[in-house]
């Protein structure tokens, strides 16, 4: 079955073609990061406006790249939530009506299910069940995945998502938008021994997270070390910023690793999947891999392009549901607060 996947939940337009026997045929992504950079964050209305301009040209691009005619598509999958309602509606409207015109089924896909199943696009993919850590600008969740649609939320962030804390702290440090990856770059120059930030909620049982306190801790450290009338030279200021970035990154990564280890031990499942934008963070990848090795298991991650938002994971998750006979009637919807737990299981 040849499935077209469309992702428009936030500030990236992703389109892909997945074929059930041949695998991924083509995928492409357009990032709106330059559009939102001047505003210091995603402007929902501008995001929606750009998706309307980009989605069809990207669909045409993947068809041409894969050498496929539009009437060979057998199913359409689009992200229906969670995400920005206006942005979601664009992909849903185009995807649903394209399927109607081609007289093929369409299926709405849960964005996080896309991320959970993204490692299945790789040759070396995990078997079910596995534990997944979803870390992005919008989510920090630990989920037990025992099959397609069989998800159990083990823990999540009670306040900021890890990626959000990265971005906000980066902004405080005066780093350019989007700050997360930039903070990690600066942190690489930092001295890991100079500051030590707390590892929130690791001293009590449970798998929930809290990252907003770390952001405040970083701010307080900055005010103390770099007051308005300091006498440090430029080099010292840069180094202090790098040291704060390093302490912050180490704290976030350690916290995530500690909770992952706890989830692996409590569940007895030794396969761990890292997904979401923050899973591109190198420190996190390395430490998770070392930890899982020590636990006698291993970590899996999608290639970096499929850690962040993309159309390939939507095409894949959509195919899983289409082949199980699921499809959307002749309407479409954005579900900005769709819960992972509301999904139905798919028979293997």
């Amino acid at each position, binding site marked *: 079955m040849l499935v077209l996947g469309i992702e428009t939940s936030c500030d990236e337009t992703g389109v892909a073609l997945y074929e059930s026997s041949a695998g991924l045929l083509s995928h492409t992504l357009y990032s709106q990061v330059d559009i939102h950079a*001047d505003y210091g964050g995603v402007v929902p*209305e501008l995001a929606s406006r750009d998706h309307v*301009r980009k989605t*069809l040209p990207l669909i045409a691009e993947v068809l041409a790249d894969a050498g496929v005619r539009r009437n060979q598509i057998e199913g359409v999958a689009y992200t229906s939530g969670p995400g920005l309602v206006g942005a979601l509606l664009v992909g849903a*409207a185009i*995807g649903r009506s394209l399927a*109607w015109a081609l007289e093929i089924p369409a299926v709405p896909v849960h964005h996080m299910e896309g991320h959970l199943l993204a490692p299945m696009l790789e040759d070396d993919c995990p078997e079910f069940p596995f534990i997944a850590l979803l870390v992005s600008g919008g989510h920090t969740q630990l989920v037990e995945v025992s099959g397609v649609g069989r998800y159990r939320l083990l823990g999540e962030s009670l306040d900021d998502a890890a990626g959000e804390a990265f971005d906000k702290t980066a902004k405080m440090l005066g780093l350019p938008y989007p700050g997360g990856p930039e903070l990690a770059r600066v942190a690489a120059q930092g001295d890991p021994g100079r500051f030590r930030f707390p590892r929130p909620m690791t001293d009590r049982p449970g798998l929930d997270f809290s990252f907003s306190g770390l952001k405040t801790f970083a701010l307080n450290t900055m005010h103390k070390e770099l007051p308005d009338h300091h006498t440090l030279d430029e080099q010292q200021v840069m180094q202090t910023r790098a040291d704060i970035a390093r302490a912050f990154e180490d704290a976030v990564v350690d916290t995530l690793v500690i909770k992952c280890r706890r989830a692996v031990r409590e569940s007895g499942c030794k396969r761990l999947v890292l997904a979401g934008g923050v899973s591109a963070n190198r420190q996190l990848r390395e430490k998770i891999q070392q930890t899982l090795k020590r636990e006698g298991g291993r970590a899996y991650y999608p290639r970096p392009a499929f850690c962040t938002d993309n159309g390939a994971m939507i095409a894949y998750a959509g195919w899983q549901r289409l082949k199980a006979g699921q499809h959307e009637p002749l*309407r479409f919807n954005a579900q900005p607060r769709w819960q992972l737990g509301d999904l139905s299981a798919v028979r293997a």
Partner: protein
Amino acid sequence: MRLLAIETATEACSAALYINGEISEHYEVAPRQHAQLILPMMEQLLAEAELKLSQLDALAFGRGPGSFTGVRIATGVIQGAAFGAQLPVVPISTLAALAQRHYRMQGARRILPAFDARMGELYWAAYEVVADGLVTRVGSEQAATPERVDLPAGEGWQGVGTGWATYSEILTQRMGARLTAIEGGLLCSAQDVAQLAVRRYTAGEAVAAELALPVYLRDQVAKKPA
């Protein structure tokens, strides 16, 4: 000539099928229901006419101005359908469609359609019916305050649309005796989009699916931090 038109920019949701001069339409006032209603309406019109989408010559849609989300629903639906069926698209101004509807219902020949654009502004334009029974714009489409929208020259103008309900006092005052009637409750309807689209299609003004894009009129939607 066979053409399918949709309109979802106001609280009304509608689809109309034009076949050689005859028009059938499904129309419902259903706020926030457009994404549920529009494709079934299109499907039903085709079924009633025993036509397939691919047997049409073109698609048309109300390209705005209006509710940003509403305009994007129509745009997205038409883009997907036109791309799938490889049909050309005729984008039609919702202000023109509203004026056309008022002409069709009341016979008025000088029409000032206005939508309440919120933030103290109107989406605004002026239309006249000349010879072919279709409205033609005089001047430009605008997003502006009721104090600043351009008023047309001449007598015998009628105001239509939600903008006239919200700002009747200031607009009536500015137009004075040149205004003869106000119809503040009128919403857009796809059959008028279809009528106007036939003229533009015949004039060779249809575009490819990926060029079927909204016209918002308001482009300042966020403030950049200082």
